[in-house]
């Protein structure tokens, strides 16, 4: 059992992150803790296993007890077998060379004898159906498999509470379903589970109680069923409005003909043909690993096709380098931190135009306005919130005024509020005549912003049409190319 009493906490040199939180988690309970980015959710996770205060320092007021152990008096290595924490970043969570060593790590920390460790590894792998992965390197696993291995690596310690920080993060609908089923089974076996998430979905209804955190305070505490209204009002479930008024033209901007891409004898794209019209917003839908990102990288010369042709405004581009196409095609990847290298937001956004010698003052003014950056121009990009970082990163791509904007999983790791704001942004950009391609497995977002969907499955185009027609296509759902309607938001 976990009990938090009158908790106030601040990291060294910051303001209060948690401002008076009180609740308990009983044995066998399945608790959901939701909230926007920056609401204090992860901080709460670090409190549960003593990382706060022992690792982070800072000022902690109030008491946290886990199985009657006060976290102030017990160090993390005394508490880790009571609360098993699965962190958000799988690359950090999985730090061994094989899945077997990964699961063994915590057991070795407990000082268990070799035979007992082997037994526990076998048992947990049988329960979570991971036997086939034991010899694999965690780096080679899919997103869903990584999450399950991370769960196994703490569950084998037999903790009374399993705590997961954003376990559904950037998983597609299929992986979400697998993790969700696993967690339900673990809970049915009598274990308490705490899921901390900013993404809302049907998994919310698996839980027995729901807490919503807002700016370090509890906004809601009650049943998941009655949380829906609160989530909508707090915009944690996004309200998507219109798609933008600009009607797509008839003239093609980009044409791919029979595009194939192979790496190390493995076919990633097979005979992909598509036509993108000027001014349209196209969503490229598919599961993780369906070839979406590989296809996008062909649009700006990052990859060259093994065979096939690609034309942009009537000119063949398949042999061009990204630097030759950067002022025509802007490609924004998932992680904004891959870009930041300047001390000020303004310099960051202007880095591309400066190198390409394409600074257009009036266009930059529009960028500041559309992305609401005026107040942030002199701030460091590293110190912004996740949503602000994403806005700066998008503005820095658009600053060179490309004709085509390509976005790879733009909603990944973002809360409902940002998704909503991004949909509005997409509509504004569309009204300004910019052609947009969005690769995503976030079907609700794609439905809200795109004029047309192209569905990619195992490297092939399997459907091309209006979102309304494809959204409920049973054939595509059975194929696994798309998820069920409302599979993300429940």
């Amino acid at each position, binding site marked *: 059992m976990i009990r938090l009493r009158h908790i106030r906490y601040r990291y060294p040199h910051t303001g209060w992150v948690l401002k008076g939180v009180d609740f308990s988690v009983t044995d066998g309970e399945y608790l959901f803790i939701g909230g926007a980015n920056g609401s204090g959710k992860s901080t709460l996770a670090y409190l549960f296993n003593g990382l706060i205060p022992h690792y982070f320092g800072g000022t902690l007021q109030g008491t946290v007890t886990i199985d009657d152990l006060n976290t102030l008096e017990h160090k993390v290595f005394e508490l880790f077998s009571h609360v098993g924490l699965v962190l958000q*970043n799988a690359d950090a969570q999985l730090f061994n060379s094989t899945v077997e060593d990964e699961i063994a790590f915590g057991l070795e920390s407990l000082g268990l004898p070799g035979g007992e460790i082997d037994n526990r590894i076998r048992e947990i792998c049988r329960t979570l159906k991971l036997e086939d992965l034991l010899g694999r390197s965690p*780096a080679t696993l899919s997103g869903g498999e990584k999450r399950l291995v991370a769960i196994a690596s*703490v569950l084998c310690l037999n903790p009374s509470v399993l705590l997961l920080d954003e376990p559904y993060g950037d998983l597609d609908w299929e992986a979400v379903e697998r993790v969700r089923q696993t967690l339900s089974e673990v809970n049915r076996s009598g274990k308490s589970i705490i899921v901390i998430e900013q993404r809302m979905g049907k998994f919310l209804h698996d839980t027995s109680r729901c807490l919503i955190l807002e700016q370090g305070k509890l906004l809601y505490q009650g049943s998941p069923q009655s949380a829906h209204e609160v989530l909508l009002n707090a915009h944690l479930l996004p309200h998507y409005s219109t798609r933008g008024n600009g009607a797509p033209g008839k003239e093609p901007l980009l044409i791919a003909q029979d595009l194939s891409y192979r790496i190390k004898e493995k076919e990633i794209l097979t005979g992909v043909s598509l036509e993108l019209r000027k001014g349209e917003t196209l969503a490229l839908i598919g599961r993780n690993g369906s070839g979406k990102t590989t296809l996008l990288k062909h649009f700006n010369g990052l990859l060259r096709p093994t065979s096939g042709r690609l034309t942009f405004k009537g000119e063949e581009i398949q042999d061009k380098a990204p630097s030759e196409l*950067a002022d025509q095609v802007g490609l924004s990847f998932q992680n904004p931190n*891959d870009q930041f*290298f300047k001390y000020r937001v303004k310099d960051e956004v202007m880095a591309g135009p400066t190198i390409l010698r394409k600074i257009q003052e009036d266009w930059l003014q529009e960028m500041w306005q559309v992305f609401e950056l005026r107040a942030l121009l002199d701030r460091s990009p590293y110190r912004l919130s996740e949503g602000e970082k994403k806005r700066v990163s998008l503005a820095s791509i658009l600053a060179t005024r490309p004709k085509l904007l390509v976005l790879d999983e733009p909603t990944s790791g973002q809360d409902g509020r940002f998704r909503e704001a991004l949909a509005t942004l997409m509509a504004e950009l569309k009204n300004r005549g910019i052609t947009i391609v969005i690769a995503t497995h976030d079907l609700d977002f794609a439905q809200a912003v795109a004029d047309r969907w192209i569905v990619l499955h195992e490297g092939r185009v399997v459907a091309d049409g209006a979102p309304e027609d494809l959204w409920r296509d049973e054939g595509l759902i059975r194929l696994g190319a798309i998820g069920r309607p409302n599979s993300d938001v429940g």
Partner: protein
Amino acid sequence: MKRLDPRTKLGLGLMAIAAVFIAKEPKTLLVESIVLLAALPLLRMGKDLLHSLRYYWPMVGLVFIIAFFSFDLLVALVLAVRLFNLLTVSFIFFRAVSPEETGDALQKIGVPYGLAFMLTTSMRYVPLIGQKIRHIIEAQSSRGIDLRLRLKNVGNFMALLMPLLAQSFVLADELALAMESRGFGRQGRSSRKHYRITFVEYGLLLSALTLLVIFAWWERG
């Protein structure tokens, strides 16, 4: 090879590196290269080496060119072949011994657990850092910041270094969190793997050491 005790592998690896440094004559170095290249298909590593060659040819080439202009052809050849042999020995060693095995071997010979773990974890994260570098290059190229290895792009390299450093610090911090949360700081760790050097392995190590001593004596003469 897989069944050998990691300490045996470590010992053999160190002796192979010593042999590369001891060799002075171009002919001896070339014989070493031939032996190493012949060993690769036997260890089923030939294909992987071909893949890695493209990364270390530029280094070998650069050493050859610098030595050629600074000294003469013979010195350039000796240095380039020695570097090639050294890289090939390291390649075989890291392919044959997993980071965990290296860590276990280091602990068994008395290196403290924390230090051995730090070394093996750094090895484990090399591919991940490589992946991060690729992502950063792609993200920057997509907005016109060219990071290909060209002289004109030297000024752009801060755009690679800064995000890489910032993300490496974040990763290191999160890794520390993950390790703490799985009991890294706890005293009395156990190890489920029990290693034992067999008589055959002792024989192997002794033979290798004898050969190394004879080889060193031969090269001196």
